[in-house]
């Protein structure tokens, strides 16, 4: 069972390898898209590296539910609807969506997901020790 520090180290390593960034850039508060330059295809790579690093299975779309953006029920005029926000909160309990909810422009969403969110996501998949 990994500790939270060990989870952070492995997440950091996965992001460094997937995104070609330096270790010190991968701070807990760094956003994946805005700060680390992740593109949508990188999430596939990141998910695969996390699966290998933690020996877990991550269903596609679980970390970054892209299908929400293509669902007319959840997005109108480039903004996530109330129903969409509810769906995101349900599917992404590891992420803090409060800031995004104030101005839920779809294009801004990628800037929200942080390294700390990633760690919390992994913590939902593995048993963590103190």
């Amino acid at each position, binding site marked *: 069972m990994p500790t939270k520090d060990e989870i952070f180290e492995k997440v950091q390593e996965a992001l460094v390898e997937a995104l070609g960034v330096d270790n010190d850039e991968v701070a807990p508060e760094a956003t994946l898209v805005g700060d680390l330059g992740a593109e949508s*295809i990188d999430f*596939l*790579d990141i998910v*695969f*590296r996390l699966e*290998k690093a933690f020996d877990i299975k991550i269903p596609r779309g679980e970390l970054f539910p892209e299908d929400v953006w293509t669902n007319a029920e959840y997005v109108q005029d480039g903004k996530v609807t109330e129903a969409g926000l509810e769906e995101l909160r349900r599917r992404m309990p590891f992420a803090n969506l409060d800031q995004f909810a104030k101005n839920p422009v779809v294009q801004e969403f990628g800037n929200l997901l942080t390294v700390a969110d990633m760690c919390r996501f992994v913590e939902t998949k593995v048993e963590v020790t103190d």
Partner: protein
Amino acid sequence: MQLDGRIALVTGGSRGIGRACVVELARRGAAVTLVYRSNREAAEALVTELTAEGLAVEAAEADVRDGQRAQQIVDRLVEKHDRLDILVNSAGIVSDGLLGAMTTEQWTSVIETNLTGTYHYCRAVAQQMMYQRSGSIVNLSSTAAEYASRGQVNYAASKGGINGLTRGMAKEFAPRKVRINAVAPGMIETDMSEAIRNLAGEQILKAIPMKRIGKPEEVAAVVAFLAGDEASYVTGQILLVDGGLSLGVY
């Protein structure tokens, strides 16, 4: 040798162009797994023939329309070798008929085998190759994708789809150091083209500037080139191997 130590997977590898690709890649040093659907005898004979030469070849039975089986084969290979370097999508069928007489089953079987089958294997290897930051995929297209012939709308559509898949995937994966190209053969001496060659007879040679039918080995050599490091700066290309067929008659 050029492909020493590379791990390769070839669909449709028991006959025709796929078989020639298996032979070419293995003789260039790759360890090859060939996928066959129904021709177990031919697949096993090829494995026996090449292993007798000291080459590393094995066979796996699968219908390329089955995406889960594709992933299973790829996962097993990666588990065994810890990597996968080359994928050649060569499995393909024809089921010709004029559009007005074509059944939905004819349309679907060709699209699902040729195009969806290619998609399944591309998808199955994509993450591993992206993870490795290396890999080369070669899809078998056809001149039929761009140069129409009567009675083959399903085949032409499937190969046109492969061209689109190849270019789109190449763009997605180029930054991750995975190359995806296609080879588009013209008239090649295979079982699959036998009916059309018989039908057209000598007339067909008039349309080919080189005045001869191509051999599977001539396609396989180009596939092996694209699969290897000599083509390290080539991606998203559809390379025609057609004796000049696409140049037109005049």
